[in-house]
């Protein structure tokens, strides 16, 4: 009858009051954004059944997990759920392989024997099986926690700030893998974060939480522009950066350059010691992304491709604007002077030429 996921929860915890009524599509990744103390984690714990909630209606993939009006309430271990905590929480007495097997043994659906191999591959952890959790990097630990959750074949994956314990330059050890999980498995996900940039490649819709309530909800495209500036507010122009996935497609031995292809275009960068076809994460400073409305002779040669403006928002300093762009599904950020924005008459949906002047960093990414 109802093919959506539905959380309707009312919860009092001391003076804190959580009052949420939210629906999202099966297979959709819902970003739950809010500052700390806004009730994001309380909501996840209630959905997982880890905290007793007196008044709730929780339906996931058409299955009622909790219905207080009918006194139905499944225990956490009866809910087909995957829960990834901030700190990964791997079992310290088990190696990686046995952490994963802990989940497999308790999978009640007679899992396909191929699930094991495909999950290891999906998160790139095949080489870590014999390691002890204490010898892993933060990113590796989180990937194993995600794999462990997926091996129970959950109907809903809850991620509670999975990147918050990881250094910002190591986040790309996890984020692209999560995107891959969403692409391949089409599993319903709730991703809790207070970083709007993490939502960029992942969430399809976003709910903003404030003081225990959902203050806004909508597709990423409409909510993200509201969030992005509030994230940037602390950052000055030279700190804003973004990243996207690409692949080494060609090497120019003579000029010592290599070409990186991404969905939406390609760029040439200085040659580094990567194999052909090596997938990479490209980190770029938003200042190094230029926008023009026509191709000039100079820009046509290098690193220029066509795209569209998806949003324009203010930066802390009035002389600059933050432009969000997309090309073939890849998202970019550019910091452009307000003067240039006015001269080019930039507005949303406008077709423009995007030029990436330089990349900050290339990181090896062994995904598919």
């Amino acid at each position: 009858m109802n093919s959506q996921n539905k959380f309707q929860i009312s919860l009092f915890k001391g003076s804190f009051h959580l009052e949420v009524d939210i629906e999202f599509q099966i297979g959709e990744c819902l970003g739950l954004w809010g500052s700390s103390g806004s009730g994001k984690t309380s909501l996840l714990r209630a959905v997982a059944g880890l905290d007793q909630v007196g008044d709730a209606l929780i339906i996931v993939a058409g299955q009622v997990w909790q219905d207080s009006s009918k006194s139905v309430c499944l225990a956490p271990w009866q809910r087909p759920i995957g829960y990834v905590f901030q700190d990964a929480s791997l079992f310290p007495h088990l190696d990686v392989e046995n952490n994963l097997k802990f989940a497999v043994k308790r999978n009640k659906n007679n899992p396909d024997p191929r699930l094991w191999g495909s999950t290891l591959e999906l998160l790139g952890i095949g080489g870590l099986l014999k390691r002890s959790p204490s010898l892993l990097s933060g990113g590796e630990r989180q990937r194993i926690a995600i794999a462990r959750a997926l091996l129970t074949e959950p109907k809903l994956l809850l991620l509670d700030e999975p990147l918050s314990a990881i250094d910002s330059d190591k986040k790309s050890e996890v984020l692209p893998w999560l995107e891959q999980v969403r692409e391949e498995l089409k599993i319903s996900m709730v991703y809790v974060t207070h970083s709007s940039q993490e939502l960029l490649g992942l969430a399809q819709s976003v709910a903003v939480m404030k003081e225990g309530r959902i203050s806004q909800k909508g597709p990423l495209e409409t909510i993200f522009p509201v969030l992005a500036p509030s994230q940037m507010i602390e950052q000055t122009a030279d700190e804003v950066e973004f990243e996207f996935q690409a692949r080494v497609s060609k090497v120019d031995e003579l000029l010592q350059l290599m070409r990186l292809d991404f969905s939406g275009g390609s760029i040439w960068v200085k040659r580094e010691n990567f194999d052909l076809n090596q997938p990479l994460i490209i980190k770029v400073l938003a200042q190094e992304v230029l926008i023009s409305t026509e191709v000039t002779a100079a820009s046509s040669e290098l690193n220029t491709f066509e795209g569209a403006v998806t949003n324009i928002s203010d930066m802390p300093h009035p002389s600059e604007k933050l432009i969000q762009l997309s090309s073939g599904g890849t998202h970019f950020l550019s910091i452009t002077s307000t003067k240039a924005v006015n001269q080019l008459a930039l507005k949303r949906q406008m077709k423009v030429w995007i030029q990436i002047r330089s990349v900050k960093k290339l990181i090896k990414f062994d995904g598919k």
Partner: protein
Amino acid sequence: MFFDPAVINSLWLTFELAGFTSLVLLIIATPIAWWLSTTKNKWRYAVKAMVTLPLVLPPTVLGFYLLILMGPKGPIGVLTQSIGLGTLPFTFSGLLVASVFYSLPFAVQPLQSAFESVNPRLVEVAHTLGANRLDAFTSVIVPLSKQGFGLALILTFAHTVGEFGIVLMIGGNIPGKTQVVSTQIYNLVESMDYTRANALAFFLVVFSFLVLLIMTWLGRNKEPTH
């Protein structure tokens, strides 16, 4: 003198009693400790105090009440008689029951603190992976509390070896039946046999020292290493 049958008998009986007491306590104390470490029940403080009582009570008090309870007119005595076991005082079984009560806090305390030191998040993770309460207990809590179990076993074993008062009251010091090392030393001293008393006493000192040495060695990981 260790080939003296009376000495061998009392040594054997002592270790048999200590061994059985430790095993029985492991079975009884584990659920009590687990309950105490997780419950928010308002009676938990009363239960904790009850469990700890043997630590402060003179063994004669505990022995006195057990003697009455297990005697021919006490409720436990009536029960054991009705199922054909006779009365327990002055038998090995009676000694075992008394030892279990007497060493209860020595098993519950280390287990409870071991259970409490396991990150509760790990239990929640186990739940979300499909493990019910018992499963999470046996597959997460128990392996992470190995030290606590080791400590509880050693403490109850050593404490039972060191019993005197309660053994005397419930067991009665019957050679070959309920006479353990501590009561035998008492007998030897009474009969002025200082040589043999000294040998047995010295044996207990060495034994206890070794036990404590093992315990501190087992506990070494708890000290911060960085």
